[in-house]
């Protein structure tokens, strides 16, 4: 067991690591949701070929951009004042 006077420091460090972990989890989840959502919106699901065609590519670019705008817009509405992406 750590000496009592060390305990707060250890806990604060735990808090920093815990926060960093949540922050990274958040970004990973954001990226995953974005990826799946834009795949659903832009990519043809018959899988007639394994390449993305030009229409799909430009749809993906715009989809990512719009998702970014929505993320910022919702962030403003929630008034978090933190960079959400």
């Amino acid at each position, binding site marked *: 067991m750590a000496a009592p006077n060390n305990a707060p420091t250890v*806990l604060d460090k735990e808090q920093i690591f815990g926060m960093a972990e949540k922050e990274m989890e958040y970004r990973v989840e954001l990226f995953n949701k974005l990826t799946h959502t834009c795949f659903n919106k832009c990519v043809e699901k018959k899988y007639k070929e394994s390449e993305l065609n030009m229409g799909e590519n430009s749809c993906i670019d715009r989809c990512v951009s719009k998702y970014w705008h929505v993320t910022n817009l919702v962030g403003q509405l929630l008034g978090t004042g933190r960079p959400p992406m």
Partner: protein
Amino acid sequence: MEKGMLSADLEGLPEEDKHRMATLIDQLQIRDSLRMYNSLVERCFTDCVDTFQRKSLTKQEDTCVRRCAEKFLKHSMRVGMRFAELNQGAATQE
């Protein structure tokens, strides 16, 4: 977050552990609010954005996203109130 069924076991714990428990609760709430944020964005994007001719939101999409987010938050608060009442009722019944 309301009293969990384990809270009884924690009453006797020393200060240090109570502090740790508070930290745990804080961190779960942070994680939860970040997840809520992510899923709100996903929902409103999915429901409101369907044209990909340009890189920024159309006026219509912007309005739709704002209403969607507002509506979802109001909904979420109402659910939270009803949920708390039911938990309250269940706790006093025991």
